[in-house]
Every structure is written in structure tokens, then in C-alpha cells.
């Protein structure tokens, strides 16, 4: 870990002014990812700006349009066990509980979850080339050990995946990210928040310099999916492991007819993977014989395997179909009974 200075921000403006013009500064809150990466020398910030004392980043509150606003500092556990979230956006609660552990969820924050970095082996090992860590050094995962890597949206520069479970649900629920920066406040649609690697894999998201995530908002409409949803995660052990493939599936069911569908994948791309066309083919269909596998094919179209991860394409296809079946049946995947319903 490098030497760094520490600044405890007393106001949001204070935090932003510390970030402004100081590319070596980093925000710290829960610490679960940043401190981890600092010990690996992957992150070497010159200054840490502690935002944990900023009251304006706390709490879960109602939005004027009937949605919920989750402050950036709200710990993952509080999201998972919040009554309003469980009543209106249970998919989010389930996704959060599918990730990490109780200890990590107690520390990790909502904002930090959005900004966590990839679990690519090579990104985490400074002895190896990695374009995300050191632009221009090359991608070791291409041609290397890439069983856990991306099958969708990757580039010749990077095939890393985004590790979050929570973000997969937020993507499916059309959340918005509220950020504040030197130029004031702006809202970013969740689909636009994370990036594909392209030729700038060092950039995980579309935050501008000096901007801070202050909240994530869930729209009122997304609560229509509270009855038929599931978060299905497949991994190398039954808990405390990152997803090989995960699926957030949610249906708005009218009688037996699917009025709207949401479908997002985790563990397969540099960002939560969603395609509206995959959802649209389900609309208007009966829950009994909706073309789930067609939705899967559309969502997975263009998938590109590497030496060790071709299985993810087939696994994702099967997982999508199963997740949609669970959602249609109104039987979300249990987080503790590991049998997949």
C-alpha cells in the first residue's frame, strides 16, 4: 500500500473540491473494494477522501414520483433488509443477498457497489500486463486463463466482467444514478452508467472527473415487478463466490399475460447485460408458453467465447430460461435453500 493523505469530508462540496483537479484522489466509504485493491498495489491513490460522514448520502427515502431513493452510503445489508425495498423491489434485495457475505454487505455501500472493479485475475496482479490497470500494457486474459471472463461486449483490449450482483438488479429495474460534481447534479440512466471496455478499459463507468455518486433511485414503475421476479446466480461454490452467470428476471403479469419483462445478466460482460429486444419478445405472451429460450437467444446474440469460457454461453441460456420460469411462476430462487427451483 502506498502512502497517501487522508481527508475526512465534512460536506459534499468539500469532497468535490478535494477531487477536483486531483486525479490521484479517490473516494472511500465502505472500503471493501478500494482497501483490497490498495493492498494489491492495484490502486495507489495519493489522497483518500472519506465521505462516510456526509449525511446527505445516507438513508432510503421516497421520491416525489413514488419511487425510492437509496443514498450512496446505505450499506448493502440495509438495502437487502429494508421493508420498502422488499415490498416494492424484492429483486434488488435478492440480488444484494446473493452477493458477498454478511460482513462485506454490512460495510459495502450502494455507491461503492456500483464502482467496484473487476475480479479479473490479471487486473488484481500487478506482476502481469493488464490494459485496465495499466493502459497499453496488454490484456493477459486474452489467451490466458479466462474461464471467468466476458462473453459479451468485450474488446481486444479487455475481457473483464463487472462483478456486482446488485447492479444486475438495478439494471433490470431501470434505476438511475444520481451524481454530483463540479458542474452540479445530473442523473444517469443505469444502462448508461457502466461502460463497455472498447479501447479504454481503464474506464469502468461514465462518471466525469470530480463527480460523486450520491444516490441510486428506483422508479415507481419498477415496483410493478414485485410479484414475479427472481435472481438466479450460478457460481463455483454455493456461497461467497462471484457469479459465473447470474440472471435478474422480472415480469409484470396481468392475469396470465406478460405485460412487461425485464432481463439482465451478470458475470458475462463489462457491465450488466440487457437488451430491450429480448424483453419485448415476451410481452403479450402467456406465462405458460412464453418464448423464454428466444429471449435468451436474443440476449446472448453475438456472444464470443474464449478458450475456457464457452460454457458460459450455454449456461447463460439455460439460466435465463430457468429464471424466467421462476419469475413466471412467482417462485423466486431461495437464497438459503440452494436447490434451484
Amino acid at each position, binding site marked *: 500500500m502506498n502512502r497517501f493523505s487522508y481527508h475526512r469530508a465534512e460536506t459534499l462540496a468539500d469532497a468535490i473540491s478535494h477531487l477536483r483537479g486531483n486525479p490521484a484522489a479517490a473516494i472511500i466509504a465502505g472500503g471493501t473494494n478500494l482497501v483490497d485493491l490498495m493492498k494489491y498495489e492495484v490502486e495507489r491513490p495519493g489522497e483518500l477522501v472519506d465521505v462516510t460522514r456526509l449525511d446527505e448520502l445516507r438513508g432510503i427515502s421516497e421520491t416525489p414520483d413514488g419511487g425510492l431513493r437509496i443514498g450512496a452510503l446505505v450499506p448493502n445489508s440495509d438495502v437487502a433488509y429494508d421493508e420498502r425495498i422488499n415490498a416494492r423491489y424484492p429483486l434488488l434485495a435478492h440480488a444484494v443477498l446473493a452477493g458477498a457475505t454478511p460482513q462485506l454487505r454490512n460495510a459495502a455501500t450502494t455507491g461503492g457497489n456500483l464502482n467496484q472493479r473487476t475480479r479479473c485475475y490479471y487486473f488484481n496482479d500487478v*506482476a*502481469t500486463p493488464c490494459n485496465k490497470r495499466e493502459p497499453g500494457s496488454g490484456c*493477459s486474459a486474452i489467451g490466458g*486463463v479466462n474461464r471467468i471472463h466476458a462473453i459479451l461486449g468485450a474488446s481486444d483490449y479487455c475481457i473483464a466482467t463487472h462483478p456486482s450482483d446488485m447492479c444486475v438488479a438495478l439494471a433490470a429495474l431501470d434505476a438511475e444514478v444520481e451524481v454530483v460534481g463540479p458542474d452540479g447534479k445530473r442523473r444517469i440512466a443505469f444502462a448508461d452508467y457502466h461502460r463497455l471496455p472498447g479501447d479504454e478499459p481503464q474506464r469502468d463507468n461514465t462518471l466525469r472527473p470530480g463527480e460523486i455518486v450520491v444516490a441510486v433511485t428506483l422508479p415507481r414503475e419498477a415496483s410493478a415487478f414485485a410479484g414475479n421476479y427472481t435472481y438466479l446466480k450460478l457460481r463455483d461454490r454455493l456461497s461467497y463466490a462471484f457469479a459465473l452467470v447470474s440472471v435478474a428476471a422480472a415480469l409484470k403479469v396481468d392475469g396470465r399475460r406478460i405485460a412487461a419483462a425485464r432481463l439482465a445478466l451478470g458475470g458475462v460482460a463489462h457491465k450488466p447485460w440487457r437488451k430491450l429486444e429480448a424483453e419485448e419478445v415476451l410481452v403479450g405472451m402467456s406465462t405458460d408458453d412464453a418464448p423464454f429460450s428466444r429471449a435468451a437467444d436474443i440476449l446472448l446474440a453475438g456472444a464470443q467465447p474464449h478458450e475456457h469460457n464457452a460454457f458460459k454461453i450455454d449456461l447463460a441460456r439455460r*439460466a435465463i*430460461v430457468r429464471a424466467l420460469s421462476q419469475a413466471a411462476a412467482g417462485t423466486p430462487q431461495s437464497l438459503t435453500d440452494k436447490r434451484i*427451483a
Partner: protein
Amino acid sequence: MLRNDPHIGSPRNRVDGPAKVTGAATYAAEFAAECLGYGYIVESSIARGRIRSIDVSAAEAAPGVIKIFTHENRPQTAWFTYKYRDQVGPPGSPFRPLYSDEIQYSGQPIALVVATSFDAAREAAALVSVSYEEEPHMTDLSIARSDAYEPPKKRMGIAPPPDPRGDAVRAFSEATVRVSAEYSIAAEHHNPMEPHATTVIWEGKGKITVHDKTQGVQNSQAYVASVFGLSSDEVRVVAPYVGGGFGSGLRPQHQLFLAVMASLALERSVRVELTRQQMFSHVHRPETINAVSLGADAGGKLVSIQHHAVAATSQFEDHQENVVNWSGMLYHAPNVDLRYELAKLDIYSPGDMRAPGAPLGLFALESAMDELAIAANIDPIDLRLRNYTDHDENNGKAFTSKELRACYREGAARFGWSKRNAQPSSMRDGRELIGWGMASGVWEAGMMKTAARAVFTADGRLELSCATSDIGTGTYTILSQIGAETLGLEMEQVTVRLADSTLPASPVQGGSWTAASAGSAVMAACQELQAQLFKLARKVDGSPLADAGEDDIAFANGRILLRTNPAKSVSLAEVIAASGETKLEAEKSASPGLIGAMRYASYTHSAVFAEVRIDEELGQIRVTRIVNAVAAGRILNPKTARSQIIGGVVWGIGMALHEETLTDHRLGRIVNHSLAEYHVPANADIYDIDVVFVEEHDDKASPIGVKGLGEIGIVGTAAAIANAIHHATGKRLRNLPMTIDKLLAA
């Protein structure tokens, strides 16, 4: 009155429990010292070549740095490689840290930064800059196996494969039922929860006390004395608590060398603690490939067994394990051909890891037996019973005991094996296929010469001491039980001191031999105390025992009493008071009987039954039930014994489903060097584990009838799970770990 609940054989709580649940138990990196220097290791990023230059100037200038050691300024240590040998190392040239500019594997320690704080040392370590002259490396066993060779020098204590018997090739070609396949097991790392660490306390005038994470304090002590030219009274090694070993602490690891080197050079106390990432830079279970061919007659009787294994080793040592010999002793077969070869890679030397060799070889053999059972249409247990052997056909020796039949019978009954439908994919529950599989397990029941001291003091307390360790196995507890039982005391009156190099001699703790060895030594020392106490008791004024013989008396409730009339007794306190002594002392050693060893072979056995539930479409595997029936002679403490087996089974589940050290062969470097990406089972992965100890009386394996339990739990488990997966799905997976991608591809 004699106790009706003897200490030996009854479930007892661990005597070190209160220390462990309160955090008072202190491990190697937790000993404090004045002016402690913190060492942080810098590792190589290439697998083979030379260090062209190593620039430590920026690191040296960092605040708090005391000294940076590299191969360029390493203090003088022993010149000859033999000086670096230890009690359990294999043939070859042991790795010598910071010895030269040569890089022998990726992750090799190339510098040690010593600073006034851990943070300062870590910060400075990142500032060390190295340039290399790279040479081509090889880390891929699938390629290197073409250059495999039979190790020219055999490793001490590891029997080489026996000479071939009959003509296995011909018998195979003529057999009615044949199976032949290759089975491989990934490299695994021990990953004990406590990272390897050494704290060296500088006592002044060249004397050091070394708190080392080791399974053998006297092995570490001898190594340090030899390498640094110290006399044995200048270096004392202690390890009262060891946070898991599983074999990783058998040989001295490089943090011991580096900490002692720095301490002697700086004349101050120094601690070196490996990071979790650095825990992947040393010992591990070798990647191993087995080719097994079995031939049988129509009735399932084996006519031919061929088992050839190739295992990885380093360029500098020939690490060897018993992988294939099991295939020559577990079943009867007239034609047997076993071979064991090594292939050199640019890696650190593999080493012993929980039941070294056995779960590798038995995964292959017991999978092949399952395949043979299917091919011959015979129940898997029945097949094994038809090929049962009552002696070790590798050497013609009789077994000291073998209750493997009882393991099959009792394990099957507990598991409900009779309800199994042999047809694959015939059992299901909703979307899950259910599979039931079984396998045999076997491990050596060894005993090693060990000494122990027993001291009985005037306050009625017994202190037992021995240099062996307790790495979580329960040694403190079983020795307390043996001492309390022998002298008729309560366990609270017994103190056990272990893992101090100044204590009576013991080999490393490993091989499942500690209970038999240290237990027998403690028993012998306590029996010697019994004799001393009885002799004195007879001399006590008006002693009711004056005319009693040794066979007439018993030790119970702190007294020596007449068996025929327990009311007639003398308390031990009276005895010692009357003797005028403040304490009585006895030191004895116990050794395996040589004649016995020439005539008998001694093994523990097991039958493992596994239930898996597998999502038919998604391939998620759950091991929902394990029954492990074990024949291990006398069970000293059913509570800690059960825990040993459960732990072994959890290891078997990890081997079957999770554990795999992944190497990028282009870089020659391990890539999943963390507990996030090297998966060991988590709590959610472990369901019901049922342990059955079958009755087994053995008066030859060791003086106290014990055979040992540390390894047997893992041995058959992975094979039983693989067989259950086949039963569930009809898919035969021959490559561990059996991950979701392999199942879907099969």
C-alpha cells in the same frame, strides 16, 4: 470406586477450547517484542531466468525502512545444499532463499524489506524495482509429462511402487470385463487459515527464540541451526498453537529462513508473515495424472490392475508420494503393474498435503472400480467384497487389523444403500437428479519413535510434555485423557506442554501418526510414574497396599486402590508427601516394534458414501449427504475424532468440486492466488456428514491400539462424489475439480 466413564474412549471437550474461543491462543505472528522489525517479502514475477538488476534505492529511502536484503547483500549462510535439508524433504537441492540471482519459479522471494512497522515494510516493498533476464519456462504438466521419469533417488519413508506381479498387460487383454481411462487432479494449495509466519525474538548474544508456524519445532530448529551455523542451545523453536497445517508446515518454509536471517543480521527481533497471495509461493499438492486399467472376469474378480501416475515436481527436488501403491494392496489381483513418475516444472517443490498421494491415486482407482462395477453389472460394494484381500499383496504381510468389511456393511446400512437403484439418472427429486456413490479409503497407520515426559507434583498435578504439535488435531486433549486415565486423575489436573524444541524428541506432526506415537510415549511415561508411585505407596506407613502386587491395584480418583477392595487405598498426595519428594518424573520413548513391522502391514480403512443432488439443466452440484465409516483401531476421543473425519470429508468435497490452483502457462504464474478465486468449501457447501467408527481391535499397530485419523477422512471422498455424480447423470468426470463447466460439457 473405578470410574465408569473412562477418559480414554469417551467424548471430551478440547482442553485448549477456552484459549481458542476467547482469542487467548497465540499464533506465530502474534508474539510481541521490543523494537520488532517487520519483514515483507518481494517476489519474482517471472518463472525462470536471472535477476539482471534489483534497485532498492527508492525502497531504502522510504520512511521506517531498516534494511533490505537481497541476494546481493544476503548475510553468509551455509554453503552446501545438504545443510538446507530437513527431516522430511525429498531428494534434491532444497530451495535456498536469496541465494543467487537465479529465478526458479514465479513467486520466488527475491528481497526482504525490514521496517519499523508492517505498513512501512509493505509500502517500501512495492518500491523495489527489478529487471530480469528471462529464460523459457515450462509449467504445463500436460506437455512436460512426455519427459516424465522414474525418480532415481527415492524419498525416505515413501515406498516406491512394488515390482510388477504376473503379466498385467496380457491379463488385461484377455480379461472379460475391462475399463481403462485417465484421471487427473489439479494442483491444490493447503491454505491453512493462518498464513505462514515466523517471529524471531532476539534474546541477545546470538540466542534466538523462534515462534514459527510449523508442524515440527525440532525440524525447524535443526534447519535453523544447520543453515545459520548455530548450536542447538542458541535456537529454540516454539509453536504452541498452529492455525492449521495440513502438511504445509512439515518442512521449514522460506519465511523461517528470512526471519532468522534478518534477526541475526540486525541483532533485533523480526517477524515475517506471508500474505495470502504469497501463500501460493510455496508448498502445494502436485498436479497428478493417473492412467488406470482394470481387467476382471465375468464375475467381477480382478485379473489385472495397471496404475501409472505422473506427478509434477520442481526443477530442484524430486518430491514423491505414494499414489499408486494403494492399487496393489486394496484388492486381490494376480497381475499388477504399478508405476510412478515425475515431470519437472518451473514451480516450487510440491509437498505433502493431507493424505499425500492417497486421494490422488484412490480417486483414479475407486472411480475405475465404479466403472468396472457398471461394466460387469455388479453392485459397487459387492464388487469390492469379491476382490477383498486379507493381506498386503505388495509385500505379502498380514494386516495388523482390517475391518473394511464392517465399514462397507455399517456405512451402507447408515446410508440406506440397499434402496439404491443402480440405473444412472433413475433417482430424482423435482428438477434435481439424485446420485449415490461409494468408494473405499485407505491410509497408512504409522507410528514414529517419540519421547514424552510426565511429571507428577506434590500438588497432585500431572504435567506431560513432548515436542510434537497440535495443529488442531486434538493432541493436547487426547494426551490429557491418556495421562488422566493412567494416573486416575481428572483432566483438569493434567497440563500438556507441546511444540517446544526443548521438550522430549518428537518427529513432525503428520502422517496421522501423532496420536499413536505421542500417545504411546505419554502412556509409557505415565506407566513409569505409576510404578514409581506404587513403589512409594507401599512404603507409606500402614499402607493398605503394602502386600499388593502390580496387578492388584488401580489408579482412580487421585488414589491407588486395591481392585478387590477399592475402599483400601492411598491418595497420590499422601504418597508423594510421604516420599519427601516435591515431584516425580519419568521420561520414556515409544517406538514401533521392529519385528511387528517386518511381519505386519498396518492401515486405516474407510468406506465413503456420497449423495449428490444435481440440477439437471444447470449442472449445479450439491453434496447433500456423506456417510464415512472408518476403521481406525481404538478411538481415544469420539468427539475430536469425529471432527477429524468431518474435516477430512470437507477437504474431500473441496477436492471433488472446488479446489484448483490455476496457472497461466505463458506467464508460468499462478493466477488465482487468493481465497476469493481459489475456492475452498464455504459453510453453505457442507450439508450432513455422518461419521461411523466401526469396532476394530488392533494390538499391533501401536502400543495403545491407535491407528490415526488425520488423513483417512479425505481419502475416498472425492471418488465417492465422482461416482455419485455418475449415478445421478450418467456422466463420468475424470478430472478434478468437477466444476459446472465440466459437467455441462460431459
